[in-house]
């Protein structure tokens, strides 16, 4: 009797709450010695579609209360916890057996919890009531910047990707993210996990493909209002130059120096993609 042949998975990207292949029908193979899977090689058209999905999801996600966003992120943690082993395998793909995949997955879980806890707290620390020298009630609140692009590094393909995405969605932004080009498989699984969390479709859109094809479109798309990227010097120059055309908020980390993703969490990461709104009203009868 021959052993049972397992059903292999067709990797798909996660856009607008649905699983898609690239509109171009292109794929690229990832191998670990032997063939592992064909990954969608997304195009600029896929980026534009993802931005459209994000734009539809944006107002709804922003309107949710901090408490509700916190519970949804916590639910994401619950879903991820259940697939730890599978994720660790995905993280080890292409790692040349370096690093500690289990540790990376556990750190990712803790990161989700960290930002889940911030959703209904950052406002009190970043906003203010301003003591103006005239009879006005004057306060400053935060609002999300809008649609943000994320360019993830190849190192720590799960932890880094989520460390970039989480602070952005914590405040009600929506994301179009490009996963690691060489180690995309954790992002494929992350899409499935996002789909079973309560995160509304379109809030986080995950694309796979070649950086040199996708990055310029994310850099120049006018509806993308902010970019968080790990990038090399040429890419950083491109991102900042293109950002000028529509005055995007760009925050980059150099890909040429190593980052300690295990500690990469902060209130500042949330503050990078919010806008301050100051409101004045007279005080009188």
């Amino acid at each position, binding site marked *: 009797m021959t052993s049972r042949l397992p059903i292999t998975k067709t990797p798909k990207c996660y856009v607008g709450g649905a699983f898609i292949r690239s509109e171009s029908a292109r794929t690229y193979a990832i191998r670990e010695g032997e063939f592992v899977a064909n990954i969608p090689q997304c195009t600029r058209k896929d980026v534009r579609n993802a931005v459209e999905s994000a734009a539809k999801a944006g107002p709804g996600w922003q309107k949710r209360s901090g408490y509700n966003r916190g519970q949804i992120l916590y639910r994401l943690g619950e879903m991820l916890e259940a697939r730890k082993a599978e994720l660790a395998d995905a993280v080890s793909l292409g790692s040349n057996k370096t690093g500690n995949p289990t540790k990376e997955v556990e750190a990712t879980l803790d990161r989700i919890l960290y930002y889940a806890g911030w959703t209904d707290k950052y406002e009190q*620390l*970043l906003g*203010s009531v*301003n*003591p*103006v*020298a*005239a009879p*006005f009630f*004057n306060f*400053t609140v935060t*609002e999300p910047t809008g649609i943000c692009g994320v360019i993830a590094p190849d190192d720590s393909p799960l932890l880094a990707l989520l460390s970039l995405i989480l602070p952005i969605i914590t405040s009600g932004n929506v994301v179009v993210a490009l996963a690691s080009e060489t180690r995309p498989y954790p992002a494929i699984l992350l899409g499935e996990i996002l789909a079973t969390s309560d995160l509304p479709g379109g809030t986080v859109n995950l694309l796979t493909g070649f950086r040199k094809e996708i990055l310029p479109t994310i850099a120049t798309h006018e509806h993308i*209002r902010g970019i968080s990227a790990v990038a090399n*010097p040429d890419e*950083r*120059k*491109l*991102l*900042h*130059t293109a*950002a*000028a*055309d*529509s*005055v995007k*908020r760009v925050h980059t980390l150099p890909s040429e120096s190593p980052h300690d993703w295990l500690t990469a969490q902060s*209130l*500042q990461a949330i503050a990078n993609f919010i*806008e*301050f*709104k*100051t*409101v*004045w*009203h*007279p005080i009188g009868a």
Partner: protein
Amino acid sequence: MKTSTTKPAASRPSRASRSRGPSARELIFGDLWEFDPAPETADPHIRSSYGLFINGKFSPARKGGSFPSISPGNEKKLTYLALADATDVDAAYSAASKAYEKVWSKLPGNERGKFLYRIARLLQDRAREFAVAESLDGGKPIKESRDFDVPTAAAHFFYHAGWADKLDHLAPGRQVAPYGVVGQVIPWNFPLLMLAWKIAPALAAGNCIVIKPAETTSITALKLCEVFQEAGLPPGVVNVVTGAGETGAAVMSHPLASKVAFTGSTEVGKAIMRSLAGTGKKMTMELGGKAANIVFEDAPLGQAVEGIINGIFFNQGHVCCAGSRLLVQESIADDMLTRLKLRMQSLRVGDPLDKNTDIGAINSKEQLTRISELVKSGVAEGAELYQTPCRLPSKGFYFPPSIFSKVTQSHRIAREEIFGPVLSILTFRTPEEAIEKANNTAYGLSAGVWTDKGSRILKMASQLKAGVVWANTYNKFDPSSPFGGYKESGFGREGGRQGLLDYCKLL
């Protein structure tokens, strides 16, 4: 008193009658009585020429270049300013860098704060002199420079002085440090105030500065350098270089500037962003605006009229957050237009130094040309222009207060920043339409909302894509209140804890 024959004088006008037309008596006397001139006569103490302020001393430009600065109110020459080139800017940065390393970074915060307190006080001492210099040099009415620009500039120094030894409380859970040397370029609409907005927080945070005022309005910046000397501010902590665009580009791109802050047009802001791409320099940008001022039918219309007039004619409309697009609910649009026309007739345009002047001189000939050109386009595109029949002085740059009705969203006057005393009026029916129209712009600096309904104010305020929302008021500013834009109006804030943090590195 036409209306008094038809109804008893004691009865309050009903809502219906209010919406038909203004109930206020028309106190317009035409040419019957003229105001006597009431010029402010304090001596502005403007020198015949100014050097660059580098390392605590005034010195001529290295190549000896200079250019005249004129008064836009009468086109008379006020002084000559030194024209800084790249080598002068370089000298300014060397001085700033040395001052930072040797002196400023070594001072404890409370000592830095004392210098800022001194500057605030010395500026208050010479407030009237500065106000006259500001109005002469920039063209704004003396009542604005006297009652707003100069006192608010002093307030900025006073407010930030107190922060200098409290930076530990600025960012939750984080220590902060200064950037070192920062480069700043400011525009001509609030020359002294904008200088204070830029300098006070940067110094409080512990930075040293190279700053370039606008070429048409540098005099009060250089006069403030005298104050720095009197205050004993260590040489090199603040350096002021004068010149036009090329000088500004040198200030923005200098390698010793670890952070730059720019206030000006969106076009120039974008060019700076491009030129600094890849350098890793920290930036803040305060750029243009095309604010919507939204008036609902339940608004207190009398107050709204004052707010609209202030929103667009304050400082001749040379205000990046000017309420240049008036959105009026359709049911009160005709009434509002009548009221505005009436109110505009009592605006006095003329000599900036006259205490009765409401609208002074346009800052420069170039700006006057640009305003005229945009107003022509408004007429050509089919909007209806109303200008008050006022006499303009024969010398100097003046433009009559103007409003356009029947404006559509595609008109240039509804899309482009005019930066002049020109209001474009559009209408809306529902709050949703108002939001849609208000947000239909690449800018997002400010907005106004006028309504008596509190819940509507909060809803509108949350949906307007703008960094500052004035509800039942307009054009209010305070050092403790963060100011800055959404979208293409820039990023970063000025004022308050949030603004100060933009001059600090997180450790």
